[in-house]
């Protein structure tokens, strides 16, 4: 059985959010509530400040804390492929999985819309679903969290289960550049303009994702939590990087930054 995983090369990622848009279209996400989000933030203090970004899908962990805390087994680890999926028919909307996910990639469907006005109001549903958008994909499998969500449940990225699960058996990599495989590639991977995303079988040593992880020292986000993500990040430090801290409070104090700048200018003037 495959264990699907993703590699995101942060040195190539431009923060264009094509992945976010593609995922939104593929999975009918609401504006501002993206299964595949790109977080923008800044590092440092003026004038030494950098705009940074960080693409963040669901990590489809090997040892997912969201699965272990679910009191109804509504969220589960699919042994065929290693997907972490939701069964909308079992979810009671307690949100413990959201609380227990260290990556913040789960969404309760009935929260106030992030972007107002709420687009769901313009396309109301008459079959108990959240909304009825004019365009929606044909795939609909509530037991795997695919399709328009019903009310009162938590939703999440499926790794495009509806595409990936149909891939030919034994294939090591799902690459959009291979014509016969491109239909099975997750939407966020397929559209990535700088080709910063790779998708393949982590259980096959010769897969490209495994080679990338080995050759470029792929790292997993918040590995200390023990969740063992199946998404790896590559970073040479040139542009975007895996953020080590999660809050603004950890940024250096302005006075420390000012001292550093003074030291640099003193050194420069002495050298001159």
């Amino acid at each position, binding site marked *: 059985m495959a264990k699907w995983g993703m590699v995101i090369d942060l040195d190539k990622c431009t923060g264009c959010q094509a992945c976010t848009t593609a995922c939104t279209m593929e999975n009918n996400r609401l504006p501002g509530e993206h299964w595949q989000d790109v977080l*923008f*933030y800044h590092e440092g203090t003026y004038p030494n400040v950098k705009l940074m970004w960080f693409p963040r899908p669901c990590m489809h962990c090997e040892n997912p804390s969201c*699965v272990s805390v679910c009191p109804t*087994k509504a969220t589960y680890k699919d042994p065929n492929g290693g997907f972490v999926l939701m069964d909308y028919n079992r979810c009671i909307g307690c949100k413990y999985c959201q*609380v227990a996910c260290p990556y*913040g990639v789960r969404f309760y469907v*009935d929260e106030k819309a992030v972007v107002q006005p709420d687009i769901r109001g313009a396309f109301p549903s008459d079959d108990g679903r959240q909304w009825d958008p004019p365009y929606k994909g044909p795939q609909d499998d509530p037991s795997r969290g695919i399709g328009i969500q019903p009310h009162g449940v938590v939703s999440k990225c499926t790794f495009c289960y509806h595409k990936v699960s149909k891939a030919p058996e034994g294939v090591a990599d799902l690459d959009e550049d291979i014509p016969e495989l491109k239909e099975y590639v997750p939407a966020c991977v397929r559209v990535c303009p700088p080709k910063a995303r790779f998708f393949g079988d982590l259980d096959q040593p010769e897969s490209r994702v495994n080679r990338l992880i080995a050759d470029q020292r792929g790292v997993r986000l918040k590995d200390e939590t023990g969740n063992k993500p199946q998404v790896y990040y590559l970073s040479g430090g040139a542009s975007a990087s895996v953020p080590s801290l999660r*809050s603004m409070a*950890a940024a250096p104090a302005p006075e420390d930054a000012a001292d550093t700048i003074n030291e640099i200018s003193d050194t420069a003037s002495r050298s001159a």
Partner: protein
Amino acid sequence: MNNAHPQTSPPAPATHDPAQDLANKRLAILIIALVGLLLAGGQTLANLATQGHAAFNTTNLGLFWGLPIVIYDYFLLTSTGLAMVASLAIVTGAEEFRPVLRRTVWLALAGLLGGVVVLMLELGHPLRALWAVPFSFAFSSPLYWKVMAVSFYVLSLLVLLYRLLRTHWTLQSLRPYALVALALALSVTAIAGVVYGSQSFRPFWASGDIPVAFIFESLLGGLAFIYFFSYLAYAFNPKWMPADLRHLFDTRLPTLLALAIFIHLLFVVARLGSGLYGNAEGLQVWQYLASSPLLYLELFVGLLLPLILLMLPQTRTYPAVQIVASLLVMNALLIARYEYIIGGQLVPLFKGAWAPDLINYVPSMTGWLLLLVAIFLSNAVNAFGELKLGLGSNEQ
């Protein structure tokens, strides 16, 4: 001609029946609680019907559990605290607790009902939860165990109450039932602590001693509730209280309440100290809490003041002091529960455009209405018990 008028008896002198007065006052409490429940519940349901879950002001940015969960856990832990006090008294053969045993067990059930109703209104699929949780056998989930423990806890309380409501009972005869109730109350409380304490990536929550802290907090809540609701049962008139109840309130209970406040204070101060000096990601919230007046209200007005009042021999036996002290403790515990549950979610999991700093959370009007729903519902059930079940009687 007999013109004698039929003899009429002179009007009877107006008698003042204290029992009737008390019954009237209890009926008034029940009516007030029911009216409050109707108003608060009606407005809550209207808000939920028009706004859905969005009425709770929670977000997908990181603040997932808001005021409704705070209220639920507050009432749940108060219930287990009451059950612990009652069952401990029975198990240890503390005869002086006899006058409050029925009331304590009934109040534990009433409080739990208030909390569970709030939880049901917060859940996405409350009816589905009734079958999906028990039959999931999700042994790895603390919430699964919590639901199962609460279910058996309710059963144990019902059995204990049934035994207590019978005409003849002794502490000895109740001991097996009390032991079961005690074990289950401890389990529910400890598991409630594990739900939060096991979240290792949230340092504000994660700690092995949280279940123990919850148990002491519950005990404190239980003792404070016994004080307040016993006074309420007698319309805050100490003259109507039985002598053995007054004896309990003037001798052992102030000491126990003071001791429970002191132990809880130790936990709060220890967490505050280590939190303020800690530099782990997520502990920044302690700085935020320390800059808020709510924390000082909890510490100094809600805990320290009652502790002093209950320790001073001059004040500890005054009914007014006992009522105020218990009320302050009940409020302090609600603040503590709020700060713990909300505080653990305030630091965003990632910095970024969507959450640049601490997450902003303000409880919604619907959230506060739910608090009123829980209060009025618990009070209505409790007042019904006082009226119909003879909760204050002390039968052997």
